[in-house]
C-alpha cells in the first residue's frame, strides 16, 4: 500500500562550485598568489518539506534564491549533496523557460524526443501529437528547427508537451514569463485542470495573482532556505509583492503582467 506523499524533501542541500579561474595559466597564477581557485556556493540549503498528492504549491522567492535549482533536484536532473529528495510517480514539466529542446531538430522531432525522455511511448506520443501541436499553435513552424523559434514559441511547445504527459507531478517554472496573454490564459486553464485531476502541481512564479488563483500553499525560498511555508495569502504577503491595501483589480494586473 503506497502512501499519499508526493514529494518529500528532507534536509536537501545543493552546493555549486564557483570557479574564478579556468585556464591553467590563470590557475597557476592564482595558486602562486594564494588566491582562492574556487568557492562553493549553497544554492539550496537544508530544505525540508512534504507535499501531499494533489497539493498545488507555489514556490516563490527573489531571483537567485534557488527555486529552479530545487526543481532540478525534484525532477532528478541533479542530486542533493546531502539530505534526500523522494518523489512518487511520473514527473513532467518545464524548468527555467524553455524545455530541453535540441536547437537543430525541428519542433516535431523535439516533441517526440521530449515526450520519450518524460517516459511516453511512441504510440502514446503519436496519439497525442495532434493535441500537442494544436495547443502550441505553431502552425507551419512545427517543421522548422527549434533553434529558430522565438523564446515564446519554444516555451509554448515545451509547455504543450509537458502538459500532455500523463504525469503525477507537474512542475512549472516561469512558464508564463514569456508567453503572450492568450497563451497565458490557456496555460492557466490547463494548470487548473491538472489541479482538478488531483495531480501535484509545483508552480514557480513571481506573479501573486496567478499564485492566488492556482495554489493552496506557498513555499518561499530565501537564499536557498525555506523562509515561509503556509497559506497563499500569508505567503504572498510574506514576499511583499502585495501591499496591505490590495484590491481585486490589482490582482488582475499582477496576474497578467507583473512577472518580476
Amino acid at each position, binding site marked *: 500500500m*503506497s*502512501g499519499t*506523499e508526493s514529494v*518529500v524533501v528532507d534536509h536537501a542541500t545543493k552546493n*555549486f*562550485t564557483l570557479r574564478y579561474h579556468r585556464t591553467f595559466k590563470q590557475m597557476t597564477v592564482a595558486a602562486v598568489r594564494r588566491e582562492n581557485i574556487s568557492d562553493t556556493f549553497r544554492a539550496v540549503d537544508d530544505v525540508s518539506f*512534504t507535499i*501531499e*498528492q*494533489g*497539493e498545488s504549491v507555489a514556490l516563490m522567492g527573489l531571483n537567485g534564491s534557488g527555486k529552479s535549482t530545487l526543481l*532540478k*533536484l*525534484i*525532477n*532528478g*536532473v*541533479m*542530486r542533493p549533496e546531502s539530505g*534526500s*529528495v*523522494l*518523489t*512518487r*510517480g*511520473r*514527473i513532467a514539466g518545464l*524548468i*527555467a523557460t*524553455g*524545455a*530541453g*529542446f*535540441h536547437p*537543430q*531538430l525541428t519542433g516535431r*522531432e523535439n516533441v*517526440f*524526443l*521530449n515526450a*520519450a*525522455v*518524460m517516459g511516453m*511511448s*511512441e504510440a502514446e506520443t503519436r496519439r497525442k501529437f495532434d493535441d500537442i501541436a494544436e495547443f502550441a499553435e505553431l502552425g507551419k513552424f512545427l517543421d522548422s528547427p527549434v533553434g529558430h523559434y522565438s523564446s515564446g514559441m519554444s516555451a509554448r511547445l515545451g509547455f504543450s508537451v509537458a502538459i500532455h504527459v500523463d504525469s*503525477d507531478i507537474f512542475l512549472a517554472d516561469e512558464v508564463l514569463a514569456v508567453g503572450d496573454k492568450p497563451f497565458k490564459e490557456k496555460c492557466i486553464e490547463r494548470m487548473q485542470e491538472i489541479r*482538478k*485531476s*488531483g*495531480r501535484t502541481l509545483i508552480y514557480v512564479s513571481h506573479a501573486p495573482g496567478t499564485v*492566488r*488563483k492556482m495554489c*493552496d*500553499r506557498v513555499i518561499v525560498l530565501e537564499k536557498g532556505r525555506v523562509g515561509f*511555508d*503556509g*497559506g*497563499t*495569502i*500569508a505567503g504572498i504577503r510574506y514576499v511583499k509583492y502585495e501591499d496591505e491595501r490590495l484590491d481585486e483589480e490589482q490582482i488582475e494586473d499582477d496576474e497578467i503582467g507583473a512577472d518580476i
Partner: protein
Amino acid sequence: MTDVTQPETTVPPRPIRHVDAPLKSPAATTGLLEVFRRRYLLRLLVRREISARYQGSFLGLLWSYINPLSQFFIYYVVIGVLFGLHQDVPNFAIHMFCGIIIVHFFTETFGAGTRSIVRNKSLVVKMALPREMFPVASMLVSGYHVLPQVVIMIVVCLLLGWTPTVGGLAALLLALLIIALVGTAMALLFSAANVFFRDIGNVAAILTNFVRFGVPMIYPYTMVQEKFGEYAQFYLLNPLADAVLLFQKAFWVGTTPDPAFYEEKHIPDNLWAYSGIAVVTGVVLLVIGQLVFTRLENKIPERL
C-alpha cells in the same frame, strides 16, 4: 497543510488521485543497462544523431564514405605507389582497407562520443535521463556508418574471388564487437571528462592520430614480428590491432592467391586467443568507464 484560516473561496477540496508507485529518488536510474532498457529513447537519439551529424551539408551521408575512401587513396598512393612498399603482400589495398574501416569506426565512436554530452547540453541540463545514452548513441551511429563500408568491401572481395566462410563471419563480428566495447568505454570516459575540461576533446584528437599507426594497416603484421621478435605479443594486446587482424582474416586472406599460405604468414597463429583477451579488455575498460562516469555524472549538469 493548507492554511485553513484563509478564506480561500477559489480553492475546491483537493481531489483524490491514487498513485500506485513507490516513493523514490527522481534522479534517473543510470548505467548502461538502463540505456538498453529505454530502447525507444535510444533509437530516437540515434536517429537524431544520424540526421544531425551531416545536417546542413550538401553531400550529407556521402561524407562518411568520402572520408575513409580519401584516406584510403592517400595511403595507397603514398605507401603503395610512391614508396612501392609491400610488393610481397598481395592485394595490399584490401589489407589496408580492412584497417581503415576498423580505425574509422573506432575514431568516429571515440571522437563523436567524446563530444556527445557537451553537444546535447540542452537536454542534459533540463531533463532527467541516463546520460550514458549519448556516448552509446554515438557508438551506434558510427556502427551504422560502418555497414555500407563493409558492403563495399564484400563486393570488392567477391570480385577478387573471395568466398565467405563461417570462420570469416565470426572474425568479422568479433572485430566489430571489440571496437564497440572499447569505443564505448573510451567515449564514456572522455565524454564525462570533456564536460569539465574542454581540452579533453583535443587529447582525444591526438590519441586518434596514434591509433592509425598502432594497428597493422599501412604495414603488415609480419613487419612487427620481424622487428620486435617475441615482443610482438605485446603489440597483440592492443585490442584495435586484434580487430584489424580479424578483419584481414575475414576479408583480405580470402582474396590472396594462396589463402592458407598468406594466413600462415601474415596472421598470428593464436589470434583467436588474443581476440578473447581483447574482448575481456574491452569489458574491463567498459566497467572502468562506467565507474568513472558515475563518479563524474552528478556534477555534469551544473558544469555544462
